[in-house]
Structure formats: C-alpha cells, structure tokens
C-alpha cells in the first residue's frame, strides 16, 4: 500500500460500484478489477470491503444478484443494476459532480 494511493471518502464506494455495474452485469472480482483499471490504481479499495458494500446495495434494492457461470466456467455471483439503482446512480453522480466542483472552486480561490 503505497503512499500515492488514496483512501476513499465514506459513501463513495456505493457510487463507484453503481457506476461500474452501469455497463452490464459483473461478478465481484470483475468489479474490483475494473475499479483498479479505471482508477489507474490510485484508489485504495481493499478487495474484501467490496462485498459488504455489494450486499448492502442489494438489500437496498439498487442492484440484484443471480448466480451464473464465469468465463472460465466457474459458478459466480453476478450483480446488475436495477431500475432503482440506475436512478440512484444518476442522482449520486450529479451530487458528486456538484460537490467536487464546489470543493475545487474553494481550493482554487480561497
């Protein structure tokens, strides 16, 4: 765990997970790989901590899970966005953009 990696602020894992699933169903490992790739390995997410977050999202009804078969023919649990999840992703993404713009502004001007 190098110094250059960032810890995620609370609550943002949800947003990232939803975004990752927006392109289609994935299993947990694929999600973690995807996250690692697109964040260019700057974000520090302990892999194990994805699962409680996924289960929480499932309980909230934003994603749903079903068992399927992976590329290498193993039984894997796939998650996909529900309609409510998609709406939630929109809302959270908009809120996050507003927030980051605002913070960036403060940092540049103050």
């Amino acid at each position, binding site marked *: 765990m190098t110094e250059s990696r960032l810890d995620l602020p609370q609550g943002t894992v949800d947003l990232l997970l939803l975004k990752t699933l927006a392109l289609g169903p994935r299993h*947990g490992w694929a999600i973690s790989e995807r996250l690692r790739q697109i964040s260019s390995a700057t974000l520090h997410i302990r*892999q*194990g*901590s994805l*699962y*409680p977050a996924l*289960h929480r999202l*499932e*309980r*909230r009804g934003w994603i749903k899970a079903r068992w399927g078969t992976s590329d290498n023919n193993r039984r894997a649990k796939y998650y996909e966005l529900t309609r409510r999840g998609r709406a939630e992703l929109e809302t959270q993404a908009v809120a996050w953009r507003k927030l980051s713009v605002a913070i960036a502004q403060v940092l540049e001007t103050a």
Partner: protein
Amino acid sequence: MLSDWAIRLRSLLRRAEVEHELDDELRFHIRQQVESYEQAGVDHDEAVRRARLEFGGLEQVKEDCRDARGTRWLEETVQDLRLATRLLTKDRWFTLAVVLVLMLAISVNTTVFALVDGALIRGLPFEHADRIVSLGTRNIRNPIVHGPLGYQALSSREYEDWRHSATAFVDIAGYADATMNLSDDTRSPERFRGAYVSVNAFGLLGRQPVVGRNFQDEDDRPGAPPVVMLGYRVWAARYDGERAIIGQTVRVNGTPAVVIGVMPARFGFPLTAEVWQPLAQMAELRDRSPDTRVVNGLGRLTDGTTIARAQSELDVIADRLERQFPETNSGIRSTVWPYGDRYIAPQVTLIIAALMGAVVFVLLIACANIANLLLARAAQRSHEISIRMSLGATRWRIVRQLLSESVVLAAVGGVAGYAGSIAGVTQLWNVLEASNPPYWLQLTIDGRTFVFLTALCLGTAVLFGLAPALDTSRANANDSLKEAPRTGTGGVRVRRWTNALMIAEIALTLVLLAAAGFMMRSFLRSYSARHDLDTSQLLTMRVELPLLKYRTAEQRIAFVQAFEERLARFNGVADGTIASSVPFAPTPRRELVVDGRSIANGDRPPRVSTITIGSRFFQTLDLHLIRGRAFTSLDGTAGHETAIVNQQFAAAFFPNEDPIGHRIRLTSQNARGGTTPWIAIAGVSPTIHRDVTTGAEPVVYLPYREQPDPLMAVLVRTASEATAIVPLLRDEVRALDSDLPLFDIKTLDERLAFERWPQRVFGTMFTIFACIGMVMAAIGLYAVTAYSVGQRTQEIGVRMALGAAAPQVWWLVLRRVMLQLAIGVAVGLPGAFIVGRLPWMDSPDPFILIFVVLALWIVAAVASFLPARRATQLDPLSALRCQ
C-alpha cells in the same frame, strides 16, 4: 422496501444456504485473483499470499457482509436471550421472587381489566349501539319521585305522541320490566323475569327470534289475542327445545297466551328477561290512565342526529303536551340519554375505575420492587459489566443485554400471570353472577384483554428493566473497575434510585391499605347494625298477584287474608306474615302531614318511610310494641284508618307527647290533588335500624288493606331449618292459586349478604390488592436492606472495630428504612384521603389510618430485621478483610 425484508428474511430462515453462498462468492473472488497473478507469472504460493493479503481477513469480511444483510441484531438478540435465561436459571431465588411478584401483579390487572372491558368498554351488543337512547320524563315540580336515576318512565299517551311526532328517531319503542309466571297443564308453574315490549322493540335493537315469528303490529292492538315470546333458555329447559311448542297455548300470569317464537340465546333485553309479551298485555296500561308512567322509552336516533337535537325536539313536544293536558303534564319535561348509561350506574363506573387504579398501583409497586431487585443485582454485576465495556461492548449492547433479562422475566411472569388471570376472572365471575348482572355483561379473557396482557408484560419489562439497565451501563468503565473491588462506597446513583422506588412503594401500599380499610369497615358496619332484630331463621320470599286476575283491592285483600290464615295454622312454622318490603330493604317514602300542624310556606313537608304489613308482622319478627296496640281486622277499613309508627318517628314528630291518638296524613306522588284520609296512630314499635350510615329512619306501618299492592314479601320465622319449610309453603300458595309461584326465596341473612355485595366484593378485592402490595413492599424492603448491609459490610466492620456497639449498628441499618417509611407515609396519606371519597367507602377515619401506618411499620420492621441482625453479628475482623 420489499427487497430489504425479503433478504433479511431469507438470511434468517435459510441461514445455512446464505452462509454457503457467501463462502462460495468470496472464495471465487480469491481464486480469480490467484489465477490472475499466476497468469502474470507469479508462482502459486506467492499468488495465494498476495491475493489473501489484498482481500483482507476472510472471516472479518464475512462478518461485515452479515452486518450488511441486517440480521445481526436478531442473532445477537437470540444470544442475549440465551445468556439471560442461563443467568436467571442460576439465580433461582431472585428469579422466583420476581416471577411471583409479576404473576400477582399481572393476574390482578388482567382480572380487573376483564371487568372494565366487559362493563365499560365492550358496550351493548346491538348494532350501532351508540345511536340507541333511553327516553324518559322528569317532573320539575316534584323532583323527588324520580328516584336515584333522576327519571320517570312515559305514560302511554306520551309514548304514542312521541312515537308519532318526533322526527329525530328512526323508531321509538317501549318496554316495562315484569315478572312472568309460566304455567301449563303438564309442568309446574315457574316464575321468570320478563318484560312487556312494544312490537317494534326487537327490530329496533336488530334482534330477531331464532324460532317462530317476531311480534307483529296486530299483537299490540287492545284486545288482541295474547301472545308470548320465550327466551332461549326457557325454551330449551322448560320445553325441551321442541319446535312444536310454537303455536301452543300456555298461561302467562294465569292468562292463556300463544307461544309465537324463541329469541336467541344470550338475549335478555332489557336486563335478564326470559319471557316477553306485547305492551298490550300489560295490566297497568289497560286503563290507559294518562298519568301512569310505566313505559320506558327506547329510541334509535336517525343518522347524524345528536342527542342534543333529539332533546330539543322532545322539549318542544313536552311543551305542547303541557298546554294540551295541563292536569297530567304540567311540569313534565322529557329526557334523552345514551342507553348504556342506564345500566351501568355512575357509582359502579367509579368503583371499577378505582379498582383499575388500585391494580395499576399494584403493578407499579411490582415494577418498583423488581427494579429494586434488579438494581441490587446489577450493582453486584457492575464489575463484570465494566470488564465487558472495557473489552469494547457499547453501552447500547449492555443495555440490551440487561433488558433481555427483563424481557425473559416478564415473559415468564406473563405466562404465569395468564394462568392467574384465568383463575381470577373465573372467581370474579362466580361472585358477580350472583348479583344478577345484565345479560350482556361477560367476563372473558378475549382478544382485547389478551392484547392488554401482552402490552402489560412488555410495558413492565421496559418499566422495571430500563432504569436499572441505563443506570448500570452509564458507569464509566474506568470508574467502575476501580470502584467495584471495594464494596465500601456502593453506587450513589443506585442508592438514589432504590430510595425513590422504595418510598413510592410504601406510599402506594399505604393508599391501597387505606382503601381496603375504609371499604371493609363500611361493610362491617352495615353488619353491626342488626342487633335490633334476630335475623336468624327468618325466611323471606316474594309473591306477586297478577293484576289481570286480582283486579280489585278486595280480591287482593281476600288473598292475603286467606294466606295469613293458612300460615297461622301451619305446623312447624312459628309465625308468618306479609309485608310490602323485607326488613332492611329500601322503602318508598311519602310526605307527612300531622293534624293540627301547619307547614311554613315554601317548606317541603317531611318525608317518612311507609311499610304495609300483615296482621302478624310484629309477632313474626319477635318485636314487642312499646305502646298502643297491634292491628286488628278492623284496622284499615273505611273509617278505621290506623297506623303504627316506630320509636324514631315518635321521637322526631312527637318529642314530648304521646303519639297515640294523633292523626297524620300521608300524600303519595300519584295522588291527583285528592285528599288521602286522616290516619290515627294506634301504636309505637321499636325502631329497626336500617344501617348505621343512614341512621334510624322514621317509619309508618300501615295495615295491608289500607294499601293493597300486588307485590308483597312473605316473612316466615321457622323453629328449625329455614329452607325445609319451602315446599310446604309452596303447597299452601298453590292451594289458593295454582298459577302463583313463590319466588326470590332467601333467608334474611342471605338477603343482607346479597345487598352488601358491592362492599363485600369490592372490599375483598381491595383487601387482596392491599395484601399483595404489602407482601411486595416487604420483599422490596428486605431486598434493599439486605443489599445495603452487604454493600456496607466493610464500613460496618470499621465502625465496630472502632467501638460501635450493637444498637449503633442497628440504627445505622434501620435509619434508612425508617426514613423511607416516614417519607412514604407522608406522601401516601393525602392519597388515602382521596380514595376515601369513593362510593361504599367509609369516610377517612383516623383509626384506620393509624392502623394502616402501624401495619406498614411492623412489616417494615420485620422485613429489615434479619438483614439488620446480620449486620450486628458481623465479626469486625472478617468484615474488614471482606473485599
């Protein structure tokens, strides 16, 4: 959210499967990771190591996932409950005490709630019962005649007029209570409570016969052939439930009537009636005298009509009738009130409310008690709890653990209380049933009562568990760890709680004891008042001459004469007579005018009780006239109007004279301006005190022939076993009139016991509650004192080592008990004065209050004696060493 609960439910019910899936999911991830490293050229062992490292602790992740699924709380609750059960089984005596206290409290609460439910909440078993109202009249010129309920019935003219002109009602029906003697050729005559009802009455109440037809308009026309409706029980018991009885002719009060139908079981309108006839059959209505007010009105309001609106409409009608018929309706006003109010007297409502209050007190005492026991126990456990907190348990977790124990205790107490409630309700019903309750009053543990019981259990759990739990868990882990090994200081907070609870407990117990005392005293007083009369072996019963058959006064007088002659000839009967009322029963009162004395303008004439008696009345009661003579067969005939007055009367109206020979006149409510004859006083009898609280009443005895009412009491004094004479008496009556039953056969002692059932039942209940309260207070005081002695062992040891003698140690321990007692008594006394105002209670009497306080003092002394003695017997050395 559906998915939320679906997932929670699944994880609870299919726990193994869910766990298995979780395991699969996580293992799949790790395997994928390992493979991806291997593909990148890392060797297997290193790949596994890295994958594991990046993933984090597998068990920790699983735990987090379970958390995320939201079932952890339940798993923990199960765990808490299991631990609680184990701890409570270990602490057997503590558990037993708590469960016992709870059981008592819950069963008395549920029992009384069943009474509240049956009498006050469940209400009348009619459709839209809130729209059914009682209708009556008031005479504003002469309010005395209304009696305790404040109303009079309607005359047939008023009834018909209201029915046709009032628009606020869907319908108005009429009814009058009656006794109905059923007789037919094959069965012996039987007497039932019955009622005359207008033909629309059952329809208005929404009830129909289960067999046969309802009353029809034709049945209510004057001169219509008499018909009769049977109650279910009469049909089943007397006529074996045979449908063939419909259409047959039986005799009702001696008059043939055709049976038309059978009402459903558990229907007894208006109170406990079992036989009904149309109003047209009512003898008192036959003459249609416009000021005979015997019809009780019953109305169903139209939708949206308020009682106030109905009242104002009837006011207008009353005004019109007053103008139209000034001789019968002057001063007559109408009244409308909810039907339910008629049968639940305000007194009863009040006393039931007071009982409910009393049992809530008992429950509060129980809760205070258990809270005290829990506090004492929690203090012993503070060390354990501190350790748990320092190991990372949150405060909420500790509170939950402690509350779980309360919930387990409450659940066990609730189950035991349920069993107790069933016993209590059965017992109470047996007593109440003897008082002839209205047919719709039932005591059952129904759904509502069960909800009440459950709420009670949970409520008590929170009530007695929460304060100790919060208090114990507030302890800072550090403080407690430092403090607990030294038992010297004890929690100041804990002590403040126990003090407050103990004081509350003493105050509540005092109020309960006082209530029980006042009520039992009024009960005992009413018994102590009977020395004027030997009530043993005095058999009383009633007989009623049906007016249709005994239309004239002469017929009735002839019957009484013949009956008394038969009684006089009777073997084994020392004496027998008739009277308008049995001794000690309430009597009608009439206004008195003494010849030669005028009443100041505006003053009400004095009122005296009147009793009409048979010729052998005083002999039968074994009373000897003080002056003058008994009635002869001439007394009461025209021109020979005479009376015998009691000594109280003589003292009140002729203080310095001999009343014999003076003339008096009695006016009755029904006298229409006419004059009643002057009555000469022929004798003076001893006074029979009704009871001490009402004092001695002036009574005028009149010969039966002067006022030959159809309903009379028969008094028989037997030399031997009182009830053995009943069959012989029945034969004598039947010889005179084969349709006439004797009824309401009781010894005078039984009758008195019955009359005093409110004091007896309610007094006993208060006494039981008070005893429970006292036992609880004793348990509480014992526990608290024992606990405080245990806490202060070291301190006491130090004091003894420094030379404190036994009395000082006694004082050390008892001081606190005595202080609690004193404050508790001070708080409770005003409450005792408040309950003293309830009906059937003696006024707050210092003797009882002193007795109650003394009793509490003794209980407190006994309860704290053992722990205090233990303190004095401590060995200073070992006490000091005690950690």
